[in-house]
């Protein structure tokens, strides 16, 4: 794996390899000295053209636990246009010694473009490209599902698991990457949301869709993932229906209680409490949201480790 650009690129074997590697890194996190010398001397640059405190911190933590050096470039605002500017910035950080570039960009396909241009020779990890993909988020979700729901996590996929993803699917790279990765690993995915939140191409995705959250819950899923209502990406006109959205699609305590006992609740964060998820549910024992954060560091360590192992 020279780059990690899309969950779609990952074969089942490659995905399981990454998750197994991440499992070892999770074990290291339990030690009194949670640090490995594996990427000593390697410089990792977080190139963030779009704000994302969590993803950036998670990649920084991952890099530091592997003893890499980290530099962060944070371009404020969306005025940084694609093309020349991405090229110039990337070449500049490579000239400063970047060995791996972690890219967050507002434009779909930016990471792919950087990886396949001749601009830089470093491995590229996609940390979110507009409404495109967010492969490390899908990996951390898969790791969390596997740890909680599969009897023997190491070496296994997600065979037989039924996962419901609820919310603004159209604006969600998290949903896109998850549909791809979770189905590659053998889970079946049902997307739930109002019609305006469903992308037109959803019929071609390897998943079911459902317009009623209550019906999706009645089907007894193993896990339910609530997406953030991304106010910043939505047309203000559509926001008028927010109250209605909350009534129909918020994971309330009553809805959570209707889930089977073993079912878990995920959220990629940051949460809008009392919008897509009730505080009571977010803080309940079903909620694995903080495990997702922990697994995020481990899968990002695995991604850095693997692209470095495969770069030439």
């Amino acid at each position, binding site marked *: 794996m020279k780059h990690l650009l899309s969950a779609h690129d990952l074969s089942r074997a490659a995905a399981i390899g990454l998750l197994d*590697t991440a499992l*070892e890194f999770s074990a290291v996190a339990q030690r009194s*000295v949670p640090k*490995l010398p594996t990427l000593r001397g390697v410089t990792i640059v977080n190139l963030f053209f779009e704000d994302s405190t969590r993803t950036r911190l998670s990649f920084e933590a991952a890099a530091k636990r592997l003893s890499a050096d980290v530099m962060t470039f944070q371009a404020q605002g969306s005025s940084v246009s694609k093309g020349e500017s991405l090229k110039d910035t990337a070449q500049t950080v490579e000239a400063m010694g970047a060995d791996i570039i972690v890219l967050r960009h507002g434009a779909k396909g930016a990471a792919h473009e950087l990886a396949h241009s001749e601009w830089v020779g470093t491995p590229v990890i996609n940390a979110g490209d507009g409404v495109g993909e967010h492969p490390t988020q899908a990996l951390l979700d898969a790791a969390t599902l596997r740890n909680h729901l599969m009897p023997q996590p190491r070496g296994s996929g997600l065979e037989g698991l039924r996962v419901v993803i609820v919310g603004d699917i159209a604006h969600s790279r998290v949903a896109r990457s998850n549909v791809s990765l979770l189905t590659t690993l053998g889970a079946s995915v049902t997307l739930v949301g109002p019609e305006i939140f469903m992308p037109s191409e959803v019929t071609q995705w390897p998943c079911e869709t459902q317009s009623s959250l209550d019906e999706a819950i009645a089907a007894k899923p193993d896990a339910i993932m609530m997406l953030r209502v991304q106010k910043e990406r939505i047309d203000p006109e559509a926001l008028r229906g927010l109250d209605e959205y909350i009534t129909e699609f918020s994971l309330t305590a009553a809805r959570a209680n209707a889930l089977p006992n073993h079912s878990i609740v995920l959220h990629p964060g940051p949460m809008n409490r009392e919008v897509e998820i009730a505080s009571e549910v977010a803080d309940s024992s079903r909620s694995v949201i903080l495990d997702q954060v922990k697994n995020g560091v481990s899968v990002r360590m695995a991604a850095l*480790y*693997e692209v470095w*192992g*495969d770069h030439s």
Partner: protein
Amino acid sequence: MSARSALSAPDIERTLRRIGHELIEATPEVDSLVLLGIPTRGAVLGRRLGSVISEISGYDIAVGTLDVTLYRDDLAGAGHRTPSPTEIPEGGIDGKVVVLVDDVLFSGRTIRAALDGLTALGRPSAVKLAVLVDRGHRELPIRADHVGKNLPSSLAERVSVRLVEVDGVDEVVVEA
């Protein structure tokens, strides 16, 4: 490709018994031993050696595994390598006599990595090295305390340790 047998299945069993006796003799407090096998085949040998020592000494010897992949110095461009689990026995390694167990001692780089890995896990009172085969060609100042068989080899040769648990057969062969 020609292959010659260096150790047969009974040879391997006898060798492990001998190393077991040596370790007991060299360790005044046998119950302070912690055997850590280096995956893949060192981990198998570590478990076997643990049962041998438990049987001879009557103590229940602690056995674990120590994966060194993440401590190697040749990772860049080395390709996909999923680390194997590191399993440290309950009771840890602080103040214990840790015996690293591996199948073949060659350049010494694996053992260098293992020593680095150990420092992150605790502070043993002593660390020893037991290997089934020492084939020479050291690149680092590392030697084994207990060697099953010294097997002088040329760099062009390949020394293969095969064990029932992994390969379905017990044998050590040298292939040219």
